[in-house]
Every structure is written in C-alpha cells, then in structure tokens.
C-alpha cells in the first residue's frame, strides 16, 4: 500500500474511467476485444505494464476505486432511489473491471503459455482478497460484501466461458478460486460469509467443481470449502445459539447440502468422514443429511422389510470409499504404534486401560479430542473388518467378539464417563450409512455392545445416540434404521424391559411411535 509512485493513482483512475466508457460503447467489438486492443496501448503509454510492481499496484488501486464507488453509491440509497438502481450503478463499473481482468489474463503471454495466465489470475485474486480483508478490518460492521462478490462471481463466469484458451487452464482457474475462497473463509471474513456461500453454491461453480472437471479432481477442494463452512458454524450450532443471522446461514447450508445430496450423493459419501469430524454432535439433522447419501446406482432394500437378511445383501461386503486419511489423525505417532501392536498381539492389557487418557483434551471448552476419537473408532473398525475377512468370515455378533478390536470398543464403552461414551458411540453411529461393510460391522458392534453391556447406562446411551438421529426430520440413513429396528425387534436385546424406555410419557410415546413406524 505504501510507496505508490507519484501520479499512479491519477493514472489508474483515468484509465479505469476510460476502460469503463470503452467497455459500454457499441464500438467495443466482439467480447470487447477491439476496445481492449486500444486500451492496452494506453496502458503501455502510461507505463502501467512496465513491471510486475506497477501492474500489482494498478490492480490494487482499481480494486479500491471500484469498492469506494460502490460504498458511495450504496450510501445514496433512499426511499426513492431503490436498491436495484444502486446495484446497477455499481455493476456498471464492476463488470467492466472484471472484463478487463479477464482479457488481460486471456492475453497474458502467448496462447500456449498457461503459467503467465494463472500467475496473473492468482495475483489479481490475491489483490482483491487483500483489499477485502483490509476493508473488513477497517469498516467492521459497515463492511459491504457487494463489490467483492460481484467481482469474484463475474470473473469466475467470464473465465469459464467455452473458449479453447480458457478450457486449457480451467483446472488451475478452479484451484485459484478455491484457494482464494479458503483464504476468505467465513472464520476469517465473517462479514463476507453470505456472499461466500452464495459463490460456492453458484450453479456454475458447482457444475465445474463437481460435474464437469474430469476424474472428480474438483471434489477434494470443494470438500475443503464445505469443511471451512462447517467449522465456522460449529461454535454457534454447538451452543444451539441460533440467532436469526446464524439460522439464515445454517438454513442456506442445508439447502446447499440438499442439492449435493440430490445431484452428487457420491461426493457426500466419499467425504462424509471429514464433514462429520467438524460438525458438532448436536447437529443431528445436518449430519443425517450427509450420512443418508448413497451411490446413485445402488438400490436400497426397504429397511422395514420383514425378515430382512442384512448380511445376505451383496453390497454389505464392499467397503465404502473414504478419501480422508483418517489413520494419520491418530496421534501421537507412538500411540499409533502401540495401537497397531495391540491390534496385532492383543497385548499389553495396560494399553486398553490407558486408552482413555489419550482421548482427553486440554483444549479449552472441550474435554475430549473428538477428531482422535472418530479416527480411532474408524481405524479399529476397518482393521477389524480386514481381520475378520482374513479368516474367511463375515462380520456378525459372533465373529466380531473376542478380538483385540472389540477389547478396545468394550473398554471404551465401560471406562469412559457419560460424555466420552456419548462421543464414542456417536463416532460408531457416524458409520451407519448405506449398505457396505462399514455399516454392517458398526451396526453389529453397536448391537453387541448393547447386548454385552454390564451397566444399563451403556444401553441407555446407545439408545440415546440412535434415537436422537431418528426423531429429527428426514432424511435418515439406512444403516441407522436397520440397526434400530433390529434393536427393538430382536428379543435377544430385551429392549422393552429397560427402565429408560418407560422413564417419561413423552419418551414412551416416542418409542411407541417409532416402533409403530418400524413394525
């Protein structure tokens, strides 16, 4: 910001005005190319293209001018001058500026040189992001998202036009925008949150990231953006602190997730683990939405089918894709080594009794390391499935028992306090999804822990974890339904004999109502 050469501000202002007029003139030519050719000459004459430093400053100054213009226009809103007119006034300059950026990028270097184009795009995105962040700090609650949102979305749309030059750099364009939007994630610029979600849920953005980019190369980046959003919402949702603004953002998030569930369920399937890692445990419906996803080519058997033989389903032996490296989340490294050693040799016994201490957290506001808990549960479970398959068997109430893996699960169920146990059981229930080997194993595990519980508290909490996922509005994951149906129908579990089933009229009615719909 400091050290702009003298006169650069005036030159930038002059050039920007010139360009805006040229852009809107009928003589601008096809895609403003005629105007651009003439304008580039002017930029050369004014020394704007002399070196990288001057170009950077030029873009920064133009961005700031565009933003200032918008703030001035928005300050003019009165009952007679309406929002639509003000927006039109802002867009008049913003759209011209975006066209200039897009043309400079397209014509940067020769046609085949993708590096200079992407470098320039990254530079511009970085500049606009920097101006945004600075503006956000300075203006605070007076911050307006409009100019930034318009620049980003229109630039994205321009750079996704069906042109050969742009198709060649499309993946790098997507990466550049994703990086920028990660930098501008809601936690870092909360005043931009609504515009941020509007951008990442735009039909062109979703189309490119999830549908059109080959080999699903955009999926990981898109997942990271959603994780950024969930992380921002988490503290407010965790405290059920849903003021109107937070509810608005939460509801908007649900809409986007519904679109993803409908159009890209495989995406939610592949990244469910990362999402559940950051969604607070009390966000039951949002989590259910993600866990309900199943591959479009799969036909789910009706969970209410009488005598449904889940273990006979063809899909039950296939593992789901999990594209997060959850094993790497088991830290510290020595703990992972000890864990692997115990799973292999089922010794020393002290390992199991020391498990609890690894799972506790010294972070303020949380007594357990939920990410570690989730990773531990999934890792031990997947190791157990491998172990059972290695013996030529399939998971069942008998084959999952009497193993190092079940030692760990049973110890955690018994030794953890109610909060830890709740988080542990939640981690298991997060694997109850569509028919696959994880759903089957963890369903058996939950039922086994219920049957073998040495205290009613364990059974009560298993029931609590299942019930809270069933009482929320749809959708409900298939694996959750079949587990709960088995629990209440199979006389082996003596479910209806437990005190907690009859502890209050609402609870009794709830169980009866759920049981009626199940049976």
């Amino acid at each position: 910001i400091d050290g702009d050469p003298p006169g650069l501000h005036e030159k930038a202002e002059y050039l920007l005005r010139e360009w805006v007029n040229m852009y809107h003139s009928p003589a601008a030519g096809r895609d403003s190319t005629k105007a651009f050719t003439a304008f580039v000459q002017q930029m050369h004459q004014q020394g704007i293209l002399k070196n990288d430093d001057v170009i950077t400053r030029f873009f920064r100054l133009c961005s700031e001018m565009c933003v200032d213009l918008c703030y001035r226009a928005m300050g003019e809103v009165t009952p007679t001058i309406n929002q639509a007119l003000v927006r039109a006034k802002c867009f008049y300059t913003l759209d011209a500026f975006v066209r200039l950026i897009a043309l400079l990028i397209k014509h940067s270097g020769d046609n085949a040189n993708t590096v200079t184009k992407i470098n320039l795009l990254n530079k511009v995105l970085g500049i606009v992001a920097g101006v945004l962040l600075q503006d956000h700090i300075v203006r605070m609650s007076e911050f307006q998202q409009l100019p930034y949102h318009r620049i980003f979305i229109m630039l994205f749309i321009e750079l996704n036009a069906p042109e050969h030059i742009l198709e060649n750099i499309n993946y790098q364009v997507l990466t550049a925008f994703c990086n920028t939007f990660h930098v501008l994630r809601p936690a870092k610029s909360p005043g931009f949150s609504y515009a941020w979600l509007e951008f990442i849920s735009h039909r062109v953005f979703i189309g490119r990231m999830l549908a059109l980019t080959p080999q699903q190369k955009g999926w990981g980046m898109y997942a990271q953006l959603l994780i950024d959003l969930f992380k921002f919402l988490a503290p407010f949702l965790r405290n059920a602190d849903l003021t109107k603004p937070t509810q608005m953002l939460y509801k908007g998030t649900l809409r986007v997730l519904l679109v993803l569930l409908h159009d890209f369920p495989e995406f939610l399937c592949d990244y469910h683990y990362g999402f559940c890692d950051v969604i607070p445990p009390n966000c039951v419906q949002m989590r259910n939405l993600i866990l309900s996803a199943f591959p479009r080519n799969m036909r789910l058997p009706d969970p209410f089918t009488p005598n449904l033989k889940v273990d006979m389903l063809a899909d039950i032996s296939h593992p789901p894709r999990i594209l997060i490296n959850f094993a790497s989340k088991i830290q510290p490294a020595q703990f992972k080594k000890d864990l692997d050693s115990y799973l292999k040799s089922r010794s020393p016994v002290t390992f199991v009794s020391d498990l609890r201490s690894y799972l506790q957290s010294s972070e303020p506001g949380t007594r357990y390391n939920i990410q570690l808990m989730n990773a531990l549960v999934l890792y031990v479970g997947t190791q157990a499935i491998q172990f059972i398959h290695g013996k030529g068997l399939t998971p069942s109430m008998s084959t999952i028992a009497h193993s190092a893996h079940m030692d760990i699960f049973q110890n955690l169920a018994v030794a953890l306090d109610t909060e830890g146990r709740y988080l542990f059981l939640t981690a298991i229930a997060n694997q109850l999804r569509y028919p696959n080997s994880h759903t089957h194993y963890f369903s058996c595990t939950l039922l086994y822990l219920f049957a073998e519980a040495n205290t009613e508290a364990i059974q009560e909490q298993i029931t609590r974890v299942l019930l809270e996922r069933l009482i929320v509005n749809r959708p409900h994951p298939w694996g959750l339904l079949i587990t709960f149906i088995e629990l209440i129908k199979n006389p082996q579990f003596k479910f209806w004999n437990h005190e907690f089933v009859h502890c209050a009229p609402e609870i009794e009615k709830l169980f009866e109502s759920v049981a009626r719909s199940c049976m």
Partner: protein
Amino acid sequence: MVTDQFGIAGLLTFIRAANENDHNLIALAPGIDLTTLGLNLNSPENLYSTFQSPWADSPCRPQDIDYHVPVEYLTNIFLRDKLAPIKLNRYGEDVLFFLFYMNGNDFIQLAAAAELYTRDWRYHKEERVWITRAPGVEPLMKSATYERGTYYFFDVQNWRRVAKEFHLEYDKLEERPTLPNTMHHNASQQ
C-alpha cells in the same frame, strides 16, 4: 438412569424445549422439514443447474439463467437506444399472458395483470385462471352476485383460449390489480 445431558433424560430436555417452541432449538431438533425449502427433491433433473441461491425458496426462472451464447446474439448494446420503452398497452394478449405467467412475484406480473384487467379479462381467484366474456354473447342469467354464460378461459398449459359455459360468482374475481409505487426499468431509463 444417566442424569446428565448425555442420556435419555438429556434428550427429553431437548424435546421438551422444542415442544415449547424454543426456536433456537427447533432448527436443530426436530429440525426443519427439508421439503419446505423450495427444492424439488423428486426431480429427475439436476437441481444445481437451476439453483438460485441459498436464501431463495424457489429455483431460477429460465430467464435468469445466463448462458454463453454466440456473441452475434448480443445485440442489446447496438439497439438499446433505439428500443421503445416498455408499454404494456401496445402488446398483444399473448405477450401479457407470457409476462404474467413467467414472472411470479415480480412487478411485471402485476403490471401485466392490470393491463389484462383493462382489456376485460378477469382473474378467478379460486380457479386461478383468466377468463373473459365471449364477445357478443350476453350472459344467460345475471344477478347481483353472479352470472351464467359462455366465457373464454385462458388455458396456459395448452396456450389457447377455450370457450366454456360457467357459473361465475363475482366475489371470486379479483378486483383491479393495484400496482405498488415501484420504478419500472426500461432500456431508455437505464
């Protein structure tokens, strides 16, 4: 039983709070009826391609979806100073019906409705259809509250006017539509 928030009693507390309409909690449990968010979850087509906004409760209208069209189609910049202002009284009924049906919750819908009213079409609030008296055909029966006769109904699905005998209650017809005090944009004003 578990007495803290992590057992059935804890869940019960949540349920009771939701029953007492604690809006903070309802959103999380029992949650929102997701079928009321304005998305057609049974659609065989993709939803993302018409997704308007996380804050909108309806999809995009077709006219709002931008496409990259051949640049030759983009004639507005050359014509806009020559285009006549939009004046609905110049246009045929088909244009008016098109504007009415394609622009829900937009000023132009109200303006088209007002112009149709001026041309003796009436909107039947219950049938949700535009009707007009068949020209030159007097009603068979008439009273202070109703009439019976032959009317043209505008069938929007087939885009045609269909003659039908009908018993018409006057109180079922919309009064002259009132337009809010909103600026209406046209090319020259822009």
